[in-house]
């Protein structure tokens, strides 16, 4: 009879927007996107309406904890395993099962809290939040509503701003809290047969809900903040941060108001599964609300979903009237206590103690520190440090090239930014998939630095290296005969021919227009396939035209 209840609970009820992530959009350099923070309402505003309306954005981010097992059960955490293969009796909410907290999840939340400058609560509590979805068989989610594990933090993020969008603008958003909670299972809706298929593999996986204060004003800021959080989580290893696999899920609370006035009515935008859509969804929603307010209407407090096809947000009809989560203390979990090394009570089993100060000491280099170090050590531009840190593996790539060459890091960065990233982006490859290894690029840069090849030849060689991985730059120089021509006799002859065939330009130079000389240099390079030593060519031509 009791088992019958579990059937009843599993099979009865409810619909929710599908928690399935199809999108596979890469997260590359979102901060070069060109949305503008100051969205101007398209409708004409009246003169006497003094300050412009602005958007107000707060985020709630669910980050799946990167752990081997779930938050309260020892079943495995794995993406795309056969349905219901990673489900324990507790995850299926069979009567008589009890939650047993995973130490790793606690440590992950503490590390994340520390990285986000939070105060770690030495005592935190678990609560039940009730709602009925078929993919949450207990009828409630264990979360931390009253006293979460970490509070009062900050996240500093940057995006490109200024007129030319090449200035790094740095901003800070306050973190209200980080709470540990359970993930739900997944529902697959079969409209045709009018049924819902339930996979509980994800049910009970540990989540960190990061709640940000409404300190942002547009989609680009929100997307940049999420990107920075993603980099921090990845550096910590507490969350893999892959949005397309649902490891990082973002809900945005959006409202509009005139600065100085109280905040407007907010809507919650859900269903956002990539950073690009996050920015678009928020900007659309701000625009929509501004138009409503300016037309004299009122914004409804509702949940809206982003529709990727139309680029609009649409109301979600998921709530019947008022939500009442009937929060109550979780009776099966005593308070979670954390300690510093100094004040661990005597006689406590060390396996049962999570030390905040030790976790703090073990924090890895975070993205902000890494960027500062790159700028400091290599003298590169701040915006370049952003690009380096943003691309997974690019910092390592850059640093290995620098190590293997005598060229200035500032010259190396040019190659990495222009040639390497350009080619990678064109073919949608990751840094780890680059056909040109760091040492191959270093060799190429060395040849250029030593004056053995011209810069245009070097670019050609890079293309060749890309096409035929495994070859060395040296080999290609020989094979394609791209070595710098610095045979004075040979160049003298070629220059003479150019001078003889361009009498008009020569006359211009002689009458004082020295800039025309570049035209002649170009002609020489054309005849030598860009291999002529440019300094030598210049001096020969100067002699011949004087």
């Amino acid at each position, binding site marked *: *009879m009791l088992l019958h209840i579990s059937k009843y609970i*599993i099979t009865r*009820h409810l619909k929710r927007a599908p928690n399935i992530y199809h999108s596979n959009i890469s997260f590359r350099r979102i901060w070069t996107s060109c949305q503008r923070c100051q969205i101007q309402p398209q409708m004409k505003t009246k003169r006497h309406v003094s300050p412009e309306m602005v958007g107000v954005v707060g985020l709630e981010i669910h980050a799946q904890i990167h752990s081997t097992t779930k938050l309260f059960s020892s079943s495995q955490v794995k993406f795309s395993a056969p349905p219901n293969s990673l489900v324990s*009796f507790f995850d299926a909410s069979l009567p008589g099962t009890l939650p047993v907290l995973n130490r790793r999840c606690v440590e992950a939340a503490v590390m994340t809290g520390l990285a986000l400058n939070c105060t770690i609560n030495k005592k935190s509590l678990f609560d039940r939040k009730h709602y009925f979805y078929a993919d949450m068989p207990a009828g409630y989610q264990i979360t931390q509503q009253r006293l979460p594990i970490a509070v009062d933090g900050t996240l500093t993020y940057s995006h490109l701003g200024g007129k030319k969008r090449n200035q790094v603008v740095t901003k800070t958003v306050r973190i209200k809290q980080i709470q540990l909670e359970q993930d739900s299972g997944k*529902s697959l809706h079969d409209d045709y047969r009018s*049924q*819902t298929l339930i996979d509980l593999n994800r049910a009970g996986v540990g989540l960190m809900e990061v709640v940000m204060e409404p300190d942002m004003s547009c989609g680009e800021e929100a997307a940049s903040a999420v990107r920075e959080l993603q980099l921090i989580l990845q550096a910590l290893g507490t969350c893999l941060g892959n949005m397309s696999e649902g490891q990082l899920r973002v809900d945005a609370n959006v409202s509009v108001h005139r600065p100085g006035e109280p905040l407007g009515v907010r809507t919650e935008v859900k269903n956002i599964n990539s950073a690009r859509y996050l920015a678009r969804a928020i900007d659309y929603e701000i625009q929509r609300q501004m138009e409503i307010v300016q037309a004299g209407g009122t914004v409804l407090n509702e949940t809206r979903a982003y529709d990727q096809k139309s680029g609009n947000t649409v109301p979600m009809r998921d709530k019947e009237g008022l939500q009442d989560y009937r929060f109550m*203390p979780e009776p099966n979990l*005593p308070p979670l206590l954390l300690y510093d090394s100094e004040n661990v009570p005597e006689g406590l089993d060390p396996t049962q103690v999570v030390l905040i100060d030790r976790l703090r000491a073990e924090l890895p280099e975070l993205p902000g520190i890494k960027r500062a170090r790159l700028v400091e050590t290599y003298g590169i531009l701040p915006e370049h440090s952003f690009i380096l840190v943003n691309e997974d593996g690019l910092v390592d790539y850059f640093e290995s090239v620098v190590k293997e060459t005598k060229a200035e890091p500032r010259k190396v960065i040019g190659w990495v930014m222009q040639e390497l990233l350009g080619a990678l982006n064109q073919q949608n490859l990751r840094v780890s998939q680059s056909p040109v290894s760091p040492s191959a690029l270093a060799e190429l840069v060395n040849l250029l630095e030593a004056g053995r090849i011209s810069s245009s030849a070097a670019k050609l060689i890079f293309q060749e290296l890309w096409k035929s991985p495994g070859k060395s730059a040296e080999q290609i120089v020989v094979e394609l005969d791209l070595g710098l021509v610095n045979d004075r006799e040979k160049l003298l002859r070629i220059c003479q021919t150019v001078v003889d065939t361009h009498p008009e330009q020569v006359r211009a130079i002689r009458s004082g227009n020295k800039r025309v000389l570049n035209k002649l240099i170009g002609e020489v390079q054309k005849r030598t396939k860009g291999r002529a030593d440019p300094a030598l060519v210049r001096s020969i031509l100067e002699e011949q035209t004087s």
Partner: protein
Amino acid sequence: MALCCRSTARILHIARLRLGPLQHRHRVEALPSVVESILGTTSTWCRWTSDRNSSDCSLNPKIPREPTWEPVAENELPPPTHVPADLVDKLERLALVDFRNQEGLDCLDKAIRFADQLHVVNTEGVEPMDSVLEDRALYLRNDTVGDGQCTEELLQLAKSTVEEYFVAPPGNIPLPKREERTAMLKNSEF
């Protein structure tokens, strides 16, 4: 029967949470008697009771060997709460239970009456508690795989499955409308 027991337990939660001042401030020593009186006095409709009574109490030293309780006189309790129909509606919706008939509603009233006894407990100067486990250490488990891989066993419990999935209806099953329920309640009176 078990369903009834479960619903009542749930109703009790609701009653505690939504009705009157929340009484978390019971004396610790008073609690076992309350628990035992739940289990002891309601044995006619609670299957767990018979299981527990017949089981060996020495298995868990935290369970008292003998139930002890003092009955609370009716005149010590606050006036009985009447649950209006609107509230019944809301409770059913929130808790996703169906009281179904007059008997169910009587059961709800009794559950609230039972919870009223908590008002009698003197909580003067006692810190509020969340649970009796509050002063226990929260056990932390190592992050190693133990459970799972019991798909077959779990799927067997479900009424309907497709391949390795549980099958649920596409959406919420609406509760019967007020008029329908009134008719149902009438029919259930005997």
